[in-house]
């Protein structure tokens, strides 16, 4: 049992160090940017049209 545990421990630490060696920490950030960029661009489109609608309504009221 002890042997298996040690084996697992070494195996786990290998996975982690391999992962660090192969992957730039920015990978997560790129995937996230694709998501946030789309959300933020969507919001800014909505805001643009919302402001247009508001301006039209304001003009009408004036």
């Amino acid at each position, binding site marked *: 049992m002890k042997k298996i545990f040690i084996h697992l421990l070494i195996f786990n630490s290998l996975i982690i160090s391999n*992962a660090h060696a192969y992957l730039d920490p*920015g*990978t*997560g*950030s790129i995937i996230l*940017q694709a998501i*946030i*960029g789309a959300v933020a661009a969507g919001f*800014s489109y909505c805001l643009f049209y919302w402001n247009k609608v508001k301006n039209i309504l304001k003009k009408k009221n004036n």
Partner: protein
Amino acid sequence: MNFSNISGSFRDPAGQVFENDDRIFRIVKKQGKNRYESIVNKGILEDSISNNFLIKTKEVNNEFKKYINEENCYFLEHEKLDYISYPYEWGFYQLKDAALHHLNYQIFLLKRGFELIDSSAYNIQFLNNKPIFIDVLSIDEYKEGEYWKGHSQFLQQFLNPLLLSSHKGLQFNDWYKGNLNGIKTSELNEVLNLKDKFSLNIFLSVVLLSRLEKNNKIDPKKALAKIKNKNKFSKNSYTSMLLQLKNWIIKLRPKEKKTIWDTYSSENTYKKEEEIKKLEVISKFSRENKPEILVDIGCNDGLYSFESLKAGAKKVIGFDIDINSIDRAYKFSQKNDLNFLPLYFDAMNPSSNLGWDEKERSSFKERLHFDAMLALAFEHHLALANNVPLEQVVAWLMNVAKKGLIEFVDKEDETVKRMLYLKGDIFPNYNKKNFEKNILLKGKIINKTFISATRTIYEYNKN
């Protein structure tokens, strides 16, 4: 010529910063030549300086003709800053302004087809109360479809420390000093609770990013494949993301936490006439000495710094252990547009030499170049609250500047009585006679002003 390299600038293969004869220069190397020529030719350098984004920079090739070769292509001179400070020495509002400065500059550049290729908070410095970008070689041409390379770094070095303070009321400075790259997103994620995570911004920039980073570590091949399949990132998405971050950061405030120094200026234990006497001494000292750079140790919200500036000091760098005081002092400096930069500082654990080869970020001691010092209502905090022997306190203070004012507080003072109430009087050598004796070991006493029965201000000159 002696090119004394500045040790913090080793990371960039495109250039090297060095100091010579009290001036700051940058060599643009072969690797940075095209980049530099493009920012000059397209007017980016000039526009960035005139819009107060970038530190004043000019080409000085004429002075360095014999050093120009295939490897060293251009020599630039930058305006010299009075004091180099680091993000772990800034208050909340200073880091916030630095973050906004970075984002505004990135948006400004993107409009003109350029971008910043990294997001190091150390590339921003303070000219009194305003942030300024200092690394000209961090600017490069933007290529359509590219992702923001500095995104992850921006979160770690700017956003995460601000969130730690605004959501949890935790001061970021000591954590930041412990890990010079700021605060890791995965660590912040562990600190935030469910309520904090209900915000969409936090969910995306902290929770989701931590999850993605964790998954990518477990299965890097899958992560790389995902990135390869990603569509190009539009300029519109890039700009929208920067604006969304900007709007979020504008709203951030530190979580309110009252500190013992919050009401110091208004509720300290001495009386009005004592305060007037104190201001007179400070005013006279600055009027007579007109220091180029004065240091105010224990500056609180900047009242004495302000008095010194009015009387003739050109610039003041203030230090205080209380982060709320630093925030107030910074706002005070901005409101009155003073040549005053307040910074967070713990005299019992001052900034040391840190980073690569222990030279990347300089210690407090290495950055000492002050003409004069104020240390008012300060020495007893070292000698009595922290048990530093009186002779060491005096020697340390006199090492900060060759002349200055030090206030000595007697044991009979109300503040001191309070400090010793539980501790007991374990300081038999703490008295005025010993204090004076220790000044005389290192220099002269120029003036002695009795502020009250228990407080005296000494003006000293170091030998």
